[in-house]
């Protein structure tokens, strides 16, 4: 019969049209809110999602996975009296590994000793060249540069970030990537412990 296939197809759209309302009713019966809360958003991004699929950004925001990456930022630890202890040592690995070469670092030397200061004097990332590949964060040996989750960064001008704009506290990093931060912290502790043990071992025969 001509038109059977069309009707069959229409039954699919028909079913999907009602799905939203059926799902709404089932959530109401369960006494739960489907919109504008985390559970609802999670359900809408799961394999069981049915009916409406829209996540109404900016009121509702998708739950970003921990690994999600956007633009890079620099991490600093909060020292005593709010001092910013920048983790970056200006070793330059990120600038070397960056595929579009959008990182510029100025490393200064100590005027007295002539040795490099382990902190960048200036640090630029051209946000409009960055391709969000994540290599800088991946190969940084000091966990100093990380990929951000902040999506709302559109601007009315070119996005060239300097040190001031790039620095974010470690607490923010721990918030967006709790698992990675914990693992890195653990590795750092282990490294320090090993270093201390080694120093102790080498120090004891001398005394």
């Amino acid at each position, binding site marked *: 019969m*001509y*038109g*059977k*296939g*069309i009707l*069959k*197809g229409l039954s*699919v*759209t028909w079913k*999907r049209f009602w799905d939203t309302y059926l799902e709404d009713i089932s959530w109401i019966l369960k006494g739960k809110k489907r919109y504008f809360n985390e559970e609802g958003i999670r359900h809408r*991004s*799961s*394999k069981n*999602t049915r009916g409406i*699929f829209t996540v109404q950004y900016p009121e509702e925001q998708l739950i*970003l*996975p*921990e*690994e*999600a*990456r956007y633009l890079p930022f620099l991490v600093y630890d909060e020292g005593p009296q709010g001092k910013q202890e920048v983790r970056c040592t*200006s070793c*330059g*690995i990120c*600038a*070397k*590994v*960056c*595929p579009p*070469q959008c*990182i*510029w*670092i*100025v*490393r200064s030397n100590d005027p007295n000793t002539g040795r*490099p200061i382990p902190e960048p004097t*200036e640090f*630029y990332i*051209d946000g409009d060249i960055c*391709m*969000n*590949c*994540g*290599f800088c964060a*991946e*190969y940084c040996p000091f966990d100093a540069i990380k*990929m951000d989750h902040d999506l709302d960064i559109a601007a009315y001008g070119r996005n*060239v970030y*300097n040190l001031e704009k790039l620095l974010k506290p470690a607490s923010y990093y721990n918030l967006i990537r709790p698992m990675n931060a914990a693992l890195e912290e653990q590795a750092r502790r282990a490294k320090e412990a090993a270093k201390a043990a080694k120093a102790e071992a080498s120090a004891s025969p001398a005394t």
Partner: protein
Amino acid sequence: MTTPVLTPIADLTARFPGSVTKDERAGYSGFLVAKENLLEVAAAIRDEFGYDLLTAVTGVDYLAENKMEVVYHAYKTTGGPGLVFKVQVDRIDPVTVPSLVNIWPGVDFQEREAWDLLGIKFDGHPDLRRILMWEGYQGHPLRKDWKEPFFEEEVKPFKSRWPDGKHVFAEEKNPFRDNLNFPKNFDPDAYQPEAEKDLYSSLERFTLKSESGLKTDQIVVNMGPHHPSTHGVLRVAVTLEGETIMGLKPVMGYLHRNHDKIGERCTFLQILPYTDRLDYFNSMSNNFGYVITVEKLMKIPVAERAEYIRVIMAELSRIQNHLIFIGMLLNDLGTMYTPSLYAFEERELILDIFEAVSGARMMCNYFRFGGVVRDIPEDVMQKIKGLVQDRLPAKTDEMDRFLSENEVLVGRLKGVHVINAEDAAKFSVTGPVLRAAGVPYDLRRADPYGIYDRFDFDVAVRTHGDMMDNFLIRFDEIRQSLRILEQALKQIPQGPINSQKPQYQVRVPAGEAYGRIESPKGELAYYVVSNGKPNPYRYHVRPPSFVNLTAIEHICRGTKIQDFVALLAMLDIVMGELDR
């Protein structure tokens, strides 16, 4: 499971003593053919040895040796290893090589590309115009002595970035403050643009003979580069008689992003994120092709668990690509949006998985030499299982029910744009389009890479080669991919995810490698030449979209212009990889 037909590589030197020699350079393989005998040898390779699919043609500029080399990769549609043969000519302009377009018509666009970017003239090519750059452009950019306007240094990393890298816009280093480079004493006021006379004169070849009495004029219509249905910025110049297409020339390069040239500046690792941006629907597959090519050069093993992760990601990528294909094909047929919205829903769920494992939705940059960058977390694994076992099969069936029997759709697709098996192979068409024409040529089976030889699946194949079969074969492939995924998810072992230590400088021994995978759109191959330095000496991508497009004029001549946009959807072109 069937094993691929393994044929020993033909011994050309015995057949053509004197004119063919083995390529003896360290790390290289294949045969060197004398330029004078190329046509004769090529005809023998096709007819006597049975290599009916010439997949890739590209050139290499050996500046130090003062040579230009053209490299050909020929395969059999029955499977098995390929045959590499090369022609070396002196690097004195004009560099000429005989064209093989009469033996394998599929080399048409690739030879034009070699002419455009490397300045190799192919004698006997009927339509040797620039293909990616515009007519009137100066220079052949892939030559080693050609510098782009924003040239900083030969290779990355650039020394100006560290340790005293005050941020400078690249614009400020260029005399025009722009990405421009003009010849000496160029006078823009006196310049007369060439106005694409080559393009239009190439179309003239299809002049119509006017019917008796009534004078009919052909008209030339330009579609694109801004057109809602050309899948990006493709342009086609069509000669029409009424509504019937008499001749057609695709004009591309509107998204030519100099992938090869940038690749030669980058280190091996830095190229990886650039490959994401080739076929931007399937960054996972692009990564896959590139890493197996470099692994071939480096001769390193891949961690067992990573092999499975790679397959899982590549197959998920294939599923979402085919779903989008179905949605976009329907869009082009005029079913505004509903099927593509349904397709995008499933795609979003798959992209969620990509984002959770790799960090990015589209540009995953997930593979590394020797493995992958990070393991799949357990909760994501559960999510993949849920999708693969519960959701995607049901949704594929729903899509099938929704569309496949629709009378209007069948009427638009059945018997339109037929390409037969012989022509498809002749034009080097690969992927679903070739299989829909009846050739069961799938690299996962014909020349297995990774661990595809461990899985039980059927090569989807259909026989008519028309649009309907091209549409249905996508459903078949989704179902086969789901089968592979089921097995991979069951068999995946625990263990390390990379056989190498994470490092940003890899040592790649000198040599050449040609790695190819079955990307969702066809055979995606990379040709990489290393000279032992941190950067590749030559880096070339053989994109399936680009080569499949060679057959477009053959397929659509004599059909109606209304169906043409659907043909573009059927070939499943994506501009990022077509123009690179």
